């Protein structure tokens, strides 16, 4: 009994390693991105080998999960989807209940490990929207749009409440992109965008004071030189002083002399910009654009509606990471906790991103056959 299981497991592992079902261009781009990330981290962390090796270990774990998940056919994922969505939302509720009365409480302690349930939603949210739209008449009409809106709103509201605006934004975007890709009529989108725009003054009312401060500080960084204003000012100095070609590897004075806070996590892109200049920035953004484009390509080749919407939404939400983090570092957007994917140190985001790419690989492996 145990022997046969061991043999099966061995066979399964061998298949993963010898005949990986991956999309080579996407895999190469991810490896390149991971290397850029580690090199930047090495510089930003003052040559801390322990941080770099820790990050590398996360990449290895993420890659292993990627290979594993790439073997799970999308049809199986689709069957699991409602349960995964419900479970991850239930975790959010548990965190909300247990975290009563305390500040930012996002962690669920499982005894052996701690994790942020909101991280799961980055994957299960587009899965759920795709699952719901899969059997339905597309483009969706108001009824289906309303249901999807509810599926998005409940977990997002729980995450906003934590409060974790950055993750809430990513989760909401992932769901919204699936809706967009399903072909929802432009005029309907226009109406919803107008309605959401009208809600902004109301939402402002519900924001925490520190979240409001961050928005206000963006408009006038000098007003808060000790707090968020300091982040914005120092980050812009780092970026601006990098110039066209940058100060060179390990030459970031802003980070080295500790003027730039959080220079290994949320603001690591400022260190990158300072050291590699506009040329480096454009190079990295082109790499990100290639990865997103490849994801959308995989989505177009996908076999069914579920796979198409899921792959497309995952690819497009990758864009949100890059744009929000880049915009924050360049003083264009308020300071919210969104990491630069695969470059920012730590967190579970690198692992969860690679799990998402595992789903993409699986969709690629089960693509339409061209006649």
């Amino acid at each position, binding site marked *: 009994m145990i022997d046969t299981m061991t043999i099966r497991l061995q066979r399964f592992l061998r298949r993963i390693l010898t005949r990986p079902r991956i999309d080579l261009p996407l895999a190469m781009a991810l490896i390149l991105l991971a290397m850029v990330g580690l090199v930047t981290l090495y510089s930003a962390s003052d040559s801390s080998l322990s941080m770099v090796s820790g990050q590398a270990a996360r990449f290895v774990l993420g890659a292993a999960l990627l290979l594993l998940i790439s073997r799970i056919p999308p049809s199986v994922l689709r069957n699991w989807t409602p349960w995964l969505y419900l479970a991850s939302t239930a975790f959010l509720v548990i965190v909300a209940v247990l975290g009563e009365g305390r500040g930012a409480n996002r962690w669920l302690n499982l005894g052996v490990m701690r994790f942020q349930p909101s991280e799961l939603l980055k994957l299960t949210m587009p899965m759920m929207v795709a699952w719901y739209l899969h059997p339905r008449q597309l483009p969706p009409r108001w009824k289906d749009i309303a249901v999807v809106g509810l599926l998005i709103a409940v977990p997002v509201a729980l995450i906003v409440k934590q409060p974790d605006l950055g993750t809430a934004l990513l989760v909401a975007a992932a769901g919204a*992109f699936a809706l967009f890709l399903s072909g929802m009529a432009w005029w309907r989108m226009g109406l919803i965008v107008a309605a959401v725009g009208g809600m902004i003054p109301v939402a402002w009312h519900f924001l925490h004071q520190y979240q409001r401060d961050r928005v206000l500080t963006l408009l006038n960084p000098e007003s808060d030189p000790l707090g968020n204003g300091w982040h914005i000012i120092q980050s812009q100095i780092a970026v*601006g*002083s990098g110039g066209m070609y940058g100060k060179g590897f390990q030459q970031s*004075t802003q980070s080295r002399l500790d*003027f730039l806070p959080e220079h290994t996590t949320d603001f690591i892109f400022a260190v990158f910009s300072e050291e590699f200049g*506009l040329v480096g*920035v454009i190079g990295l953004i082109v790499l*990100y654009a290639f990865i997103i484009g490849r994801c959308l390509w995989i*989505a177009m080749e996908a076999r069914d509606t579920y796979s198409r919407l899921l792959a497309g939404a995952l690819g497009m939400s990758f864009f949100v990471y890059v744009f929000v983090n880049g915009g924050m570092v360049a003083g264009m957007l308020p300071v919210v906790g969104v990491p630069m994917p695969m470059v920012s140190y730590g967190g579970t985001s690198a692992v969860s991103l690679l799990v998402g790419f595992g789903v993409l690989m699986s969709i690629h492996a089960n693509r339409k056959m061209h006649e």
Partner: protein
Amino acid sequence: MPMKIRRSFKDTRGESALFQRRAVVGFLLILLSFGLLVSRFHFLQVTHHDEFATRSTNNSVKPRAIPPARGLIYDRNGVLLADNVPAFRLEVVPDKVPDMQALLTELGKVVPLGQDDLDAFKKQQAQSRRFDSVPLKLHLTEDEIDRFAVNRWRFPGVDVVPYLTRHYPLGPLFAHVVGYVSRIDTDDLDRLDPDEYKGTSHVGRTGLERYYEDVLHGKPGYELDEVNADGRIQQVLKTIPPTPGTNLYLSIDVRMQKAAVAAFEGRPGAAVAIDPRNGQVLAMVSVPSFDPNLFVNGIGRADYTALTTDVDKPLLDRALKGAYPPGSTVKPFLALGGLEYGIRRPEDTVLSTGQFCLPGQTRCYRDDTRGGDGTVNMVRAIEKSTNTYFYRLALDMGIDRLSSWMSRFSFGGKTGIDLTGEADGILPSREWKAKRSKQGWFPGETVIAGIGQGYWAVTPLQLGHAMATLAGHGMPYLPRLVMATRASGDARPQMLANPPSGPSLIQKPSDWNVINEGMRAVITGGTGKGLNDGFPYPIAGKSGTAERFSRTSDAYDTNKNSAHLAARHRAWFEAYTPADDPKIAAAAVLEAGAWGAKDAGPIVRKIFDTWLLMQGSTAPSDTPLPYQSLPAPAGSVSVEDQPVESSSSEGGP
């Protein structure tokens, strides 16, 4: 019917084409956004490169937070109750420490570091920038400072830094009211705004220190330091001074507080005195008390164990959180309810025979006087505390009207005083019982609710507040400890407005006269006889004596000659004066006493005596006199003499 056909089939080919169009449009939008992002980087890195490059090379200026001085707390005459005094603490700049763990181990051998110190330090370090100085150990002793000074060269990045710590000059006297501050712990760090608390090590933990934290804290300032490549400060370029916290003025007079504590002679209990004209708290004491200074910089284990294991529970604020059966003290309120609801006229009489039986029940309810008080009207029923009168009144009123009326005096709820942690006590009602028991409400429970027994539990603050509301002709005010504030920059304290919290509870002014007459009679001929002797103004009051133990339990000792008699009851007294124009109302409880009027009555009288003394000796009591030095009143007890330690020997059996 083309619509129907469209709805029933999925057009997979069309869907796929639609998706492809959307994906292309989406990708183009993404490229456009990336273009926007790149143009922003171009703006910073090329267009404005020179400017930022200059700022980067000249970037040698770092901000450093300067914590604000915490607001001071005074009594109504400007006697200092909470002060800031200089002390020294150990601070670490993590940036300059290559191996934090090794440093803490080595440093611990020179200056002992507790686990609390280390936990708070690590948490605060995680929330600070690496070049921010983080406090490690507070309130260093002379010895510790000396030992560190000798070893300082071994610990780069560690420094002894002067700071202001909190001191409570009157110690136990205001421990429960003013409360204390203590070191910011890991839970606080999650709750507090890190920008507002940069460089601050303490936060209000209990009492007014906690309730008025936002007001007392102030706003941090900062200085811009020019630093060299090593991060050492070369010169201070600019200083934005912090805004000190706002000072608070209590409506309590230190002398009244002292007299109230002294009146207890160490016996556990509590008293609250309130000005019925505005809700100002004039005294609020809980006996025994403790020294709040012990908690400010971390209390030692031995001290803490001693406080928590003391049978008299000095840490418990009995005035705010101690809930006791009120006994007969509820009767004046119930009588007023009878008049207001139109259930009783003042002249309606009841025959008291010594016991009151519900029809069809064998169990009867006693009067206190064997044989009863005879035929009594309302005034006489209050004077004699005739149970039968109130049994019948409660029954006629019904439990729903009874609890609805009593809740208007804040029984069973919060009075709204400016402190956190008020106990609700228990106001008997159907709803209250339904939440705790499957059994319905029994008429017998209404009967005993009429004399403050059964489920009833009230706090001294609730009773004091209710007495003040009654004394003030039914005008409800939220009890207020803080009367005035003085923000930094204000020359004089600003009085805080405390308008009535609602319309008067009394519809017919003549009703009040009846209750007043009854409570006057308590003092002139009832249980409180003699309490007015030698006092120039008429006092109106009511005693209450509730059993601590059930009559059937072993703890209830029937031997009237033993010391147990003195400890068998909760002794209550409530009163106000002058009866014709009330200016002060008070309630006092003794946890263990023989009779309300005999044991708790003198406590209230002593509070009134001190109040009277102050009427003559100081300026009008509505205006605080912050700068006036205080003449020591004759016969007052100094703080050191408070019989806190000896309380157990004098109090209980």
